[in-house]
């Protein structure tokens, strides 16, 4: 595969608190904000608390999920003082981080999240041609923390327009409203390694291509519900609980009903479950997501300072 030259990554944004109760990112951003930039950093980093109001209240969102306010429609909708807080905020963030032509333009955005699911450390990218994200994933395998590393391709979420590359760094399991030191340390190390990669890239290092396992979202599965009341009638089966990224075969247990009955996976294709039993997804009608795994070849990667952005 032919090597690819890319422009310098001059400006990076690290966002925490997109959901105000996902604490590792919030505390990491607070720590990063304490360290004042002295102008000698090889890469300029903008650190942002995306939803500070929700973070203060330690809730996922105040009026509406910020991470769903970055559609084209939401970003171009007229807003006023009476608009939901998160709708106003998404437009502010888009203006802060998005516009390419401005001096503030950001080349890469990393949005920090936690999940109650047992995903380990997971990079989420929104394009299956996001070579930077895949290269960073390869680099993160150097982490001393024993977390699995996977990438999912999902619909665009925190996605200001015109960002060159972006991803979410999702680490679980951690309850919402709790910071676990091992999770915080893993996130801190993950962000540091990402910065190291960027610095090495910018200084001319060639990153060898290779193969990366990518999990691509196929569908969501909801809980079984009572047809009249819509109340859930089962919990994720103990054999599936905490088994994110472990292959689920047709016939494997999926839910254990309160009545004692086991419901099994009825799909024809073995798929990889992830975001199993995420607390915030009950209201979205998602018990787990299913993905297909494929090996993606990534090209060798190096900087070309003359490459236009």
């Amino acid at each position: 595969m032919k090597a690819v030259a890319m422009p310098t990554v001059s400006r990076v944004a690290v966002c925490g608190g997109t959901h105000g109760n996902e604490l590792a990112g919030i505390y990491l951003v607070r720590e990063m904000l304490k360290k004042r930039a002295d102008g000698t950093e090889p890469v300029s980093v903008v650190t942002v608390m995306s939803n500070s109001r929700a973070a203060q209240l330690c809730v996922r969102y105040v009026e509406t999920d910020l991470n769903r306010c970055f559609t084209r429609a939401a970003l171009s909708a007229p807003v006023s003082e009476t608009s939901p807080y998160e709708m106003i905020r998404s437009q502010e963030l888009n203006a802060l981080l998005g516009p390419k032509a401005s001096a503030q333009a950001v080349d890469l955005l990393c949005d920090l999240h936690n999940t109650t699911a047992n995903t380990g450390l997971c990079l989420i990218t929104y394009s299956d041609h996001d070579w930077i994200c895949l290269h960073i994933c390869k680099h993160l395998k150097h982490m001393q923390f024993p977390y699995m590393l996977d990438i999912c391709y999902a619909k665009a979420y925190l996605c200001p327009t015109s960002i060159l590359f972006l991803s979410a760094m999702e680490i679980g399991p951690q309850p919402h409203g709790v910071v676990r030191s091992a999770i915080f340390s893993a996130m801190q190390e993950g962000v540091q390694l990402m910065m190291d990669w960027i610095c090495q890239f910018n200084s001319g290092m060639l990153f060898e291509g290779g193969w990366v396992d990518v999990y691509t979202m196929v569908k969501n599965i909801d809980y079984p519900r009572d047809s009249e009341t819509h109340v859930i009638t089962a919990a994720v089966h103990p054999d599936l609980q905490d088994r994110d990224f472990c292959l689920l075969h047709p016939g494997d247990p999926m839910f254990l009903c309160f009545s004692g009955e086991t419901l099994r996976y009825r799909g024809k294709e073995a798929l990889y479950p992830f975001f199993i039993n995420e607390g915030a997804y009950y209201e979205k009608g998602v018990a787990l997501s299913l993905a297909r795994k494929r090996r993606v070849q990534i090209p060798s990667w190096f900087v070309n300072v003359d490459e236009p952005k």
Partner: protein
Amino acid sequence: MSSRTNVSCLHEAKRVAIFGGTHGNEMSGITLVNMWKQNSAEIERNGLLIKPFISNPKAVEKCTRYIDTDLNRAFTPENLSAPDVEGLLYEVQRAKEINRMFGHKGSSDAYDVIFDLHNTTSNMGSTLILESSTDLFNLQMVHYIKKAMAPHTCSVLLNEHPQLKYSTTRSVAKHPIGLEVGPQPQGVLRSNVFESMRTILKHALDFNEFFNSGVEFPPCTVDVFRVQERMDYPRDTNGNITAMVHPHLQDCDWEPLNRGDPMFLTFDGRTILYEGANTVYPTFINEAAYYEKQQAFTTTCREILAANAIRKAFK
């Protein structure tokens, strides 16, 4: 002297309530109570009038711990005697209502038993919470439950501390019992946690039924953890936490914490050690709802409580 003279004769415990949703995001109890409200077959017992009840329905609807104030701290004498006026906090109104329905607290008309179902983000496993070291009925019940659940461990937490004790929802009853099962994130239902709580209640109701039918329970002892002290996170002058529970302490509920053991890890990587003189047994380690209550964990000491034999008093 016949040993029969050492049997404590207690009133029949007929009226029993099962409370779920005292905290609206603790899902095991909410799910169990809603299930039993629809179909109570599983909880029916001879000689018992059992009422499953959602204590804080507004909080349950929003899947949040509380609306205005923590219901499980709201059953103070001041709140319960507050006049019915507009502008009362939702949970204070609710506490008064619950006191009318299941109390009045302290009176002979109060419900005999209330089981209050809770979850925690802490790794406490199955825990039974008592508020008195001299309630023989409760001591015998937890002894029965522990034996029935074995080899699955049931820890017993005793909060009789004069300053740290609080006015719980269940305190309206003559025999209040807290069921606390974790770890489970708020807003999440884990099958294993759900089934553990369901099984604990099954044994509790069995005990109650046996007791009411006249069965005598011999003297017993119960290993308990008695609440000693609340330990807060280190904080800065703005009240923000500056450290997290240390990885060596995280998830080690009920295990000994000795002087010199790691306790907290600051965000910039420094370890803070436990400096107490005595070995303690921490619990409620890193409970999400306790950050705002200035509580990283609670220390306890181990104690053995003795209970007389009991049986139902003859009419």
